């Protein structure tokens, strides 16, 4: 009897949870409630008509002589869903636009989107499933570790990939063997670039003579930026007076900040994600450390996580300056109309650009007359990304995407500042 009651209660708990999910997600637009509209697992080699895709939602195009399949891979659920959904939405937004205008060479682009939950093993199986389904190119993966795992699968088969968010140098370049992964491109910065930019900015514009660093140890993004910052500071003659670390999940930074305060630096470089940044800045002000904090693009969105007065005067560099030009404003309006503003972040913009670069390359590849998904076609896409990229005026790089020898984009950084509780564009640097 008691067990029966217990079962009913457990069922209620579960039911209320699922109901609650719907209820609260209406309070929180996007984010958690935004269930990924992933492809349900359809038969691997079934006809494209059987799969539910964005192309399927378009009106039938009689001129269509087939479709071009493009994969989108990333964490759509779980801890890193914010980034994965932004990438998925950004790319989908542009591809849907192209499809609505008639596609490429009369062919619709069919999106195959899978969730990897932020797990490398899942990323590899999901990617392999996409390859089985005949994708021509991939936008993704999102997290650096997952992306490197996927590159290991994609490089041997020469499948073109553009990542909008994986910032580690190792994504496109294998330092052990000295090989550049010719099929992998990205539309975001690499880690060292941002650290160097901010060190330069601190020395030249802010006139800092000394700096301190606090970063998350065990996070390659955070450590990568911090290392580059320290190296550049040494080259510029800025004295790094304190270097502190913390581990993932920490919320109390006062001990580290007390050490930093004791060293009295001119600026503090804090290359972490906005949630931690908010806590760090708040606690720094609490213990009386009043100097400006500098950060990398992980800061975007920090305004909701600390008070306006605490954040006043903090600076970070980013690839994306919200509302800075008409093209950016148009992108933002389209995005918000379709997905809400919740996941509209830098990765949505870089992913939109990734889709632009990819579509330009697909157009080029179509000229070869090869069959989408074939080896020659993929080669043509890879060549197309490099050749067409410079003429693509993206949302985060109006000057186009010119890739260097390591397939990294060469573009300027945007310096953002927080003032009056808003993150505003300060200058290009």
């Amino acid at each position, binding site marked *: 009897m008691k067990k029966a009651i217990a079962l009913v209660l457990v069922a209620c708990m579960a039911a209320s949870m699922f109901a609650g999910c719907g209820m609260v997600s209406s309070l929180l637009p996007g984010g958690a409630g935004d269930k990924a509209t992933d492809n349900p697992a359809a038969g691997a080699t079934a006809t494209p008509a059987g799969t539910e895709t964005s192309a399927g939602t378009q009106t039938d195009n009689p001129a269509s002589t087939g479709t071009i399949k493009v994969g989108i891979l990333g964490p759509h659920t779980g801890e890193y869903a914010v980034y994965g959904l932004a990438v998925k939405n950004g790319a989908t937004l542009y591809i849907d636009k192209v499809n609505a205008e008639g596609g490429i060479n009369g062919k619709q682009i069919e999106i195959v989107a899978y969730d990897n939950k932020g797990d490398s093993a899942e990323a590899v199986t999901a990617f392999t499933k996409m390859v089985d389904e005949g994708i021509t190119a991939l936008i993704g993966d999102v997290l650096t570790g997952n992306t490197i795992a996927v590159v290991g699968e994609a490089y041997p088969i020469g499948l073109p990939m553009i990542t909008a968010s994986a910032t580690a140098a190792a994504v496109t370049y294998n330092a052990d063997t000295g090989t550049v992964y010719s099929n992998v491109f990205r539309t975001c910065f690499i880690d060292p670039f941002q650290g160097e930019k901010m060190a330069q900015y601190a020395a030249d514009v802010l006139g800092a003579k000394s700096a301190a660093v606090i970063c998350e140890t065990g996070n390659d993004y955070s450590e990568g930026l911090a290392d580059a910052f320290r190296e550049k500071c040494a080259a510029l003659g800025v004295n790094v007076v304190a270097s502190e670390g913390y581990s993932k*999940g920490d919320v109390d930074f006062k001990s580290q900040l007390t050490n930093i305060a004791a060293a009295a630096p001119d600026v503090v470089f804090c290359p972490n994600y906005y949630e931690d940044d908010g806590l760090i800045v708040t606690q720094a002000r609490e213990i009386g450390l009043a100097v400006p904090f500098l950060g990398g693009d992980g800061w975007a969105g920090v305004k909701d996580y600390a008070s306006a007065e605490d954040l006043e005067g903090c600076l970070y560099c980013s690839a994306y300056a919200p509302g800075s030009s008409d093209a950016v404003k148009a992108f933002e309006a389209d995005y918000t109309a379709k997905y809400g503003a919740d996941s509209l972040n830098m990765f949505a913009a870089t992913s939109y650009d990734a889709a632009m670069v990819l579509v330009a390359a697909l157009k080029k590849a179509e000229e070869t007359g090869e069959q989408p998904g074939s080896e020659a076609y993929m080669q043509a896409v890879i060549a197309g990304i490099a050749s067409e990229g410079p003429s693509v005026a993206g949302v985060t790089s109006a000057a186009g995407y010119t890739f260097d020898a390591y397939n990294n984009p060469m573009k300027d950084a945007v310096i953002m500042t927080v003032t009056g509780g808003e993150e505003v564009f300060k200058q290009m640097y």
Partner: protein
Amino acid sequence: MSLLETIFRQILNGLQSGSIYALVALGYSMVYGIITLLNFAHGDIIMVGAYLAWLAMARLALNPIFAVLVAVLGCTILGMAIEKVAYKPLRGSPRISLLITAIGVSYFLENAAQMIFGASSQSIPAIIKLRAITLGGVQIPGTALVTLLTAGASMAVLTILVNHTRMGRAMRAVSEDTGAAQLMGVNISTTISFTFALGSALAGIGSVLYSCAYPQANPTMGAMLGLKAFVAAVLGGIGSLPGAMVGGFAIGLAEAFVSAVGLSAWKDGVVFAILIVVLLVRPTGLLGKPMHEKV
């Protein structure tokens, strides 16, 4: 800043986080004392409390005082509900089954919160606004002061409750010998429920203090906090209330010290190393009573 002042500040940092650990450790210790269950979900109750505070303040725009009440009451009810649904049907089952259930509950709460509120942190508006005060030339942050005072008051109330009331006596009797207590007319179910309620209420207070000091709610925040509080409870001697308090402050101070000397990356490792050393050298903890194996 002089070296002495830095040291004083670091001690203050340690005491602030230590008092939160101590409050959580008390809940662990009480539940363990009474039904020898390691309530894995205890840390997650704090997470729910933080989300309740966030919902009350950020979404419903309630007064902070109501938000505190909502969080503490919500935690108390949740704690009792978990006991009724998940632990009560298992009374008399092997300990390993209870433990696995507790892990299941903890996992459920974390993932449910993640589905409902999303994986990223929610920012909790300031519950108390207090200027830092200066004492003998040293600045003491307002939140640190409030945290220390509230934690101290809660512990004092708890001590009186356990030592000088009828229910407290029943609790002590049940944890001493369940069978004998039952024969003496103690209602076991009520006593266990009350213990869970009390422990969860303390977790609720802990969640409010936590939200003041670190104003963010996130689905996995309870996991590490719960584990460290458990370490504190074991360090002090599980089942012993003064032990839990001592253990909490000791862990807080140890963490602050490790970070202060620049080894913050090893902080979690050090906490668990302390646990391992304590368990091996003095399994009953600093203030625990020795236990004997019964055949």
